[in-house]
């Protein structure tokens, strides 16, 4: 079970720092082809910012802020972006994830198309990693049993 943190210092500092952590994560994703970092690293930082909010603000508020449906959606959309870009390259006559083929659609030279293609793929990876990281943390910290389920089972007298 997630116990909401009582420590006012941790809670307030987390509140102030989370927007900056999230922006830093997006920076790492967007600049993955210039500097160290990329989709996975940025996604993990983004997931960590959500985990920090979950620890400090508790289960109820996080559920209000980001419903589980949205997390699942993000995880799927990320994979879809990755596979979509790869398959588009395949359909345009190149190899899977051969970004230079995208120059036909994007109307730019192949080198530029590679740059944009890898940015899209990293965005997809980032979404999926963020969603999955948060989902794993959520599941571990709740022990797989959501508080709502606990309430229901105790109301019905069901110990299973």
């Amino acid at each position, binding site marked *: 079970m997630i116990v909401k943190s009582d420590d006012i210092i941790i*809670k307030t*500092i987390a509140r102030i720092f989370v927007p*900056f952590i999230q*922006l830093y994560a*997006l920076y790492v994703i*967007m600049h993955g082809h210039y500097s160290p970092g990329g989709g996975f690293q940025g996604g993990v930082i983004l997931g960590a910012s959500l985990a920090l909010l979950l620890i400090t603000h508790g289960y109820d508020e996080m559920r209000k802020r980001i419903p589980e449906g949205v997390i699942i959606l993000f995880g799927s959309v990320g994979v879809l972006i990755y596979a979509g870009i790869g398959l588009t390259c395949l359909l345009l006559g190149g190899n899977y994830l051969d970004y230079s083929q995208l120059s036909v659609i994007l109307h730019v030279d192949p080198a530029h198309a590679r740059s944009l293609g890898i940015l899209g793929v990293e965005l997809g990876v980032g979404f999926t990693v963020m969603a999955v990281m948060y989902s794993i943390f959520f599941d571990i910290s709740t022990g797989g049993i959501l508080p709502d389920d606990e309430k229901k089972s105790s109301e019905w007298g069901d110990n299973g």
Partner: protein
Amino acid sequence: MEVTIFIHAADDAFRILENAKERAVGLLDTATTLTSEARWMEEKRVQSILKGAQEARSGFQNFVATFVILMAFWALLSEKFDAFHLSLGVICSLIVAYISHDLLFANVRVGDGRIIAQRFLHYIPWLLREIVTANFHVAYLALSPRMPIDPQVMTFKTKLESDISWVTLANSITLTPGTITMDIEEREFVVHALDSKVAADLDTGEMEDRVAHIFMEADHIYIQDVLDVSRIFTELKRGR
């Protein structure tokens, strides 16, 4: 003969007194002009608090303020100022500001932001000076062969009202060598102090007053009076 000398002396004394009075009136005038502007602002604020006219900032204002700060942070990180990267920055800042606009500026009142920022910047040099002086004291405690430490845990009730001011005070205490904030519970600070001197320093409550002054809480108008008086004193000293 002696009577004339006496009359002259009395005359001189009278003239000196007159001069002193004039100078005092002039100094008081300067003091009034110095404080009147600050006082007018404070009074207006208190009036609006009493009328309930001062409301929490709206979500949109928070959104815009968060966006501007995040965009500055992005420019600092990215260091690429071509159109493509700047537009990426705008999009990312918009997304983050949309997700978490209620996090950065929770419970900031309308019109307070600039004053808080200004006063916070003025607070930092004072805090640095405190840190340096406390540093020397702790170094003395550590290097002294007798090692005259007297560790103790003290608690005090705070008059501050919001979470951000509690955190500012707690972190200022922790940053100052010799004292560490252990816990805040129900507006009560639990502080570990290395010896009775640092504990007594903390007990004077100057740090708490200054934090209250930054965030305009508790008896900050009274604190403004104290700060004004110190300005008048410097003016008086300069006049002499």
